[in-house]
């Protein structure tokens, strides 16, 4: 598995797309800092970018890589290697190279700008951690989609739809539900709804840092316990881990049974 991981990783490192991705984040970081002159404001803007763009790039890239390397995968399948290690190796190769582009691309300008001396260092590292989690989750989801669809067009379609649903439509439905049932106590429901969507989950995680004073304005014991203590942070991280494990598990399962 490690060999395949290494192969996929270096293959991607050599590919143009990784550089484009890396360059994009580098540019974003530099421009944000250049325009803002303020680390904490730049962190807020970055958050908006990360929770929307990272999943999008993760899904598209994952699907693309799977379809592109399909022939090579079939060649590997003919060798005496466990199926799980082939697919896991490829998955981790993609996810890790994407995460590396993200961390380096954003990290370098911020470090040069004096991140370590500023108070934003924790907010920023939280941002990077959630970025990595989102990459892991959405690449895994993309692999799931690609494994289940032989048709490339369909696969891409589903991938984009998945992203659109989780990034935008889900929140719309969520908001409608909350407003429709506003006469009932909703604090548990709203926290539960957040757990079901990794993008919302990472957003909440960042809100905990940035908007804690607004979140504490709501009267609700469950809310207060969740946002007022480290409980919220722990639960969110736990749920993000679950969100990584479930799709990865399905990759393993699916790849075992699939006919090629």
């Amino acid at each position: 598995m490690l060999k395949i991981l290494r192969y996929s990783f270096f293959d991607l490192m050599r590919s143009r797309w990784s550089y484009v991705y890396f360059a994009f984040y580098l540019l974003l970081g530099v421009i944000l800092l250049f325009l803002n002159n303020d680390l904490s404001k730049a962190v807020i803007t970055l958050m908006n970018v990360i929770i929307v763009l990272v999943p999008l790039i993760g899904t598209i890239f994952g699907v693309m890589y799977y379809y592109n390397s399909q022939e090579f995968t079939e060649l590997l399948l003919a060798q005496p290697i466990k199926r799980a290690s082939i697919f896991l190796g490829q998955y981790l190769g993609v996810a890790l190279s994407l995460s590396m582009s993200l961390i380096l691309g954003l990290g370098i300008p911020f470090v040069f700008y004096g991140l370590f001396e500023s108070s934003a260092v924790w907010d920023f590292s939280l941002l990077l951690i959630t970025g990595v989690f989102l990459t892991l989750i959405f690449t895994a989801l993309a692999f799931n989609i690609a494994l289940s669809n032989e048709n490339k067009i369909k696969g891409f379609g589903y991938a984009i739809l998945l992203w659109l649903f989780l990034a935008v439509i889900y929140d719309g439905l969520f908001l409608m539900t909350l407003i429709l049932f506003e006469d009932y106590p909703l604090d548990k429901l709203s926290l539960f709804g957040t757990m079901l969507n990794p993008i919302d989950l990472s957003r909440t995680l960042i809100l905990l840092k940035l908007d804690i004073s607004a979140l504490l304005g709501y009267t609700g014991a469950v809310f207060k316990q969740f946002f007022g203590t480290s409980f919220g942070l722990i639960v969110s991280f736990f749920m993000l881990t679950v969100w990584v494990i479930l799709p990865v598990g399905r990759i393993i399962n699916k790849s075992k049974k699939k006919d090629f």
Partner: protein
Amino acid sequence: MKSITVFFIAIFIANISIAQTIEVCSTCPVSTLKEAITQSKDFDTIIVEKGSYKEHAIVVDKPLTIIGKNYPVIDGEKKGEIITITADNVTVDGLFIINVGTSYTEDYAAIRVKNSKNFVIQNLVLEKLFFGIYIEKSRNGKVYHNKIIGDAVEEYNSGNGIQLWYSKNVEIEHNYVEHVRDGIYLEFSDDCLIKNNISTLNVRYGLHFMFSNDDTYQDNTFENNGAGVAVMFSKRIKMYNNLFKENWGTASYGMLLKEINDAEIIGNIFEDNTIGINIEGSNRINYRHNSFSNNGWAIKVKGACYANNFTENNFLYNSFDIAYNSNVNDNVFDKNYWSNYTGYDLDKNGIGDVPYRPVKLFSYIVNRTPETIILLRSMFIDIIDFSEKVSPVFTPDNLLDKNPQIKRITW
């Protein structure tokens, strides 16, 4: 007439020349403060040496100066009120007063000033108290450099740090108040000056005005209180250069304004509060040169607020800048800096070319269904906010800052 004046001056000088000093210590002939007061004559000085004195219900009924050396402890043993001042021209300085009695029927205080003029209360340390310094129906006094540390947990069985009731012209400066109900409380008290105090960790308000007019408070710090400052039913209050910080919670405000008219709020800093300023039924108030940063809501307007002016303030990284609960607006927002402003300035005059709408649709939704706060900063919310910005339906459409500043305002 002249001779009468000379006569009075002569008496006054004579008085001073015969004014003597009485020393109180455990081994002295006079071993209690009460005894010293009964033995003293007008305008005497009583010096209390270091030690512990178990006394309560001390009544100062003559113009005396009471000075503690090295903070002698006056221990009330929780039996009731400790010092009551009923005469004019009394100075109390440098005592350490502890264990004030708690009562549900009477407001026992560490020091009560009653119907007095020209009093000075300074350098006291008060601990384990019910009410701290209670000034009633008095005028022209000074309360300086006191430290009041209470242990209040609940509102109903705790008292206020410094309380003024029907008093006038009192100066309250450089005091430190923590862990009481209201740090400083003014009721029916006019023309007072509250300056350079620190009021923190109080159960209810850091500073509280009720039916008090023409007061000024400036350069104070209010941190981590139930709510920073509550100004209610008062007129012409001046609020300058105060710091309101970290007042967090479901009913927490940096400043709560209720039925306030003609006030001036200038140069204050509101940082990390759940709600920076909560305004209800307040008219003709000028907000200028204030800075609101990292609050949940910078300003929450609850209705019946007319002809208020918000000019040249900085709104920095608040979750919500302004929240309205109706779509009627009669207040003016002009020349403020909004960190959430996304417009441009093509003619480079430092003023954004597109007006800024500080009220977002989402703040209206959160007002209606508070749980939706969890969707803050979601992309969907950005989309609906944007559509509301383009054509306002739920938010007041004349509520806009026509001259949003491009750069942060400095003053």
